[in-house]
């Protein structure tokens, strides 16, 4: 198969891949910001004592984790217009990724907060801090550090998941590969190329993870 692998065709399609890559990067970035907001809100609901906020948050997180992203994507893609929201595919895709990743991020943040030893909370309570003060000054700054690496892991997952948006014809990276594969009937050229680009994105995010852990490791060391 590889003896007639056509680099020339790949070069020919490079502008399309380039546009797809750029779209994947910014739609993933937007989705990640959306997911962070969704995650923070869900996590805040999930940490409340009463069930009024906690129960819906838990139900939502379970529903998202238990169902395929593709099903969620189609649910929004076909469901939103029925409710009267006719949105561009790209917007639907970003909403779907935000809502999906947000559920995972909620759990990552919750784990980070719960990893802070009980004694930290007791010390801040004993010094007369209010709930908001001890979250802001003691718990969240420490939780933030332990949360960064898994959050970047989730960012990598999100970038790969964004490939599914090709199925609702968003012109992102995977869509570019599909076009090449179907136009020229060259699946190897199409999909190996996008795989290489995803790998590149992966190393960029991983580089961020390494940098951030180095930075967090020196500032205010924990034994």
């Amino acid at each position, binding site marked *: 198969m590889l003896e007639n692998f056509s680099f020339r065709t790949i070069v020919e399609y490079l502008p399309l891949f380039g546009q797809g890559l750029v779209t994947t990067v910014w739609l993933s970035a937007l989705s990640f910001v959306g997911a962070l907001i969704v995650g923070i809100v869900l996590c805040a609901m999930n940490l409340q004592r009463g069930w009024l906020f906690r129960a819906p948050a838990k139900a939502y997180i379970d529903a998202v984790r238990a169902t395929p992203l593709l099903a969620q994507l189609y649910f929004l893609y076909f469901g939103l217009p029925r409710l009267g929201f006719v949105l561009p595919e790209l917007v639907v895709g970003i909403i779907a990724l935000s809502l999906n990743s947000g559920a995972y991020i909620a759990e990552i943040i919750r784990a980070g907060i719960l990893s802070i030893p009980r004694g930290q909370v*007791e010390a801040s309570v004993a*010094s*007369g*801090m209010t709930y908001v003060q001890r979250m802001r000054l003691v718990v969240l700054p420490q939780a933030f550090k332990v949360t960064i690496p898994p959050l970047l892991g989730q960012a990598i997952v999100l970038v790969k998941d964004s490939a599914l948006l090709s199925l609702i014809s968003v012109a992102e990276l995977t869509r570019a590969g599909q076009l090449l594969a179907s136009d020229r009937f060259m699946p190897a050229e199409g999909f190996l190329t996008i795989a290489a680009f995803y790998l590149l994105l992966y190393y960029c995010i991983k580089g961020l993870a390494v940098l951030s852990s180095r930075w967090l490791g020196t500032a205010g060391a924990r034994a």
Partner: protein
Amino acid sequence: MTKTGMIDFRGVNKWFGALNVLKDITLSVEPREVVVVCGPSGSGKSTLIRCVNGLETIKDGNLIVDGQRVGDPATNMTSLRTEIGFVFQSFNLYPHKTALENVTLAPIHVRKIPRAEAEKAGRELLAKVGLADKVNAYPAQLSGGQQQRVAIARCLGMRPKIMLFDEPTSALDPEMISEVLDVMVAVAEEGMTMMVVTHEMGFARKVAQRVVFMDAGAIVESGTPDEFFSHPRTDRSRAFLSKILRH
């Protein structure tokens, strides 16, 4: 209204499930008094002092601290806690803050003292506990004894009326115990009202006006350090003392 102590337990009871961890505790600590609480493991002594600042809630009875009833909805616990310093067995310093920041955090954010003033006071307190050179060190860079001294300075930074110590030297290597006890003695000699859960009998003899011996959730015996150590009145306190004084 009858005259009350700084800390006044009146018939206080507490349960953990079916376990009666505090049994009908009545105890009054006067202003400037130092009371040492001792007793075997699980006797309820930590629970006793954790009730004073509301880290534990009581089931019934009255606990009046600085004239306010703990657990009463009318009592603002957050503001009452600013008057009570609490030193933990495991220090519980904030690992992401330097020694100075640990000391100034609550004064700045809770007491609303201007930063410059709080830092000046913080430096003085760290110097007082012998850590003038560790102002910018993080807790992970300090020994256990140093961390506990920062923790004491952190409490003093709030200018509390009461200091509670929950086994402050139990997690320390033997050679670090005296540096922490010296600081506690200095605090006691300045007239702080203190309740100290400890088995450090030297400390008790030196500064305590009273030793309270607890067993199985109840106060079994209470007296001056001299009375208690030299002439324990109950079998249980004698058995306890023979164990801790053996070595």
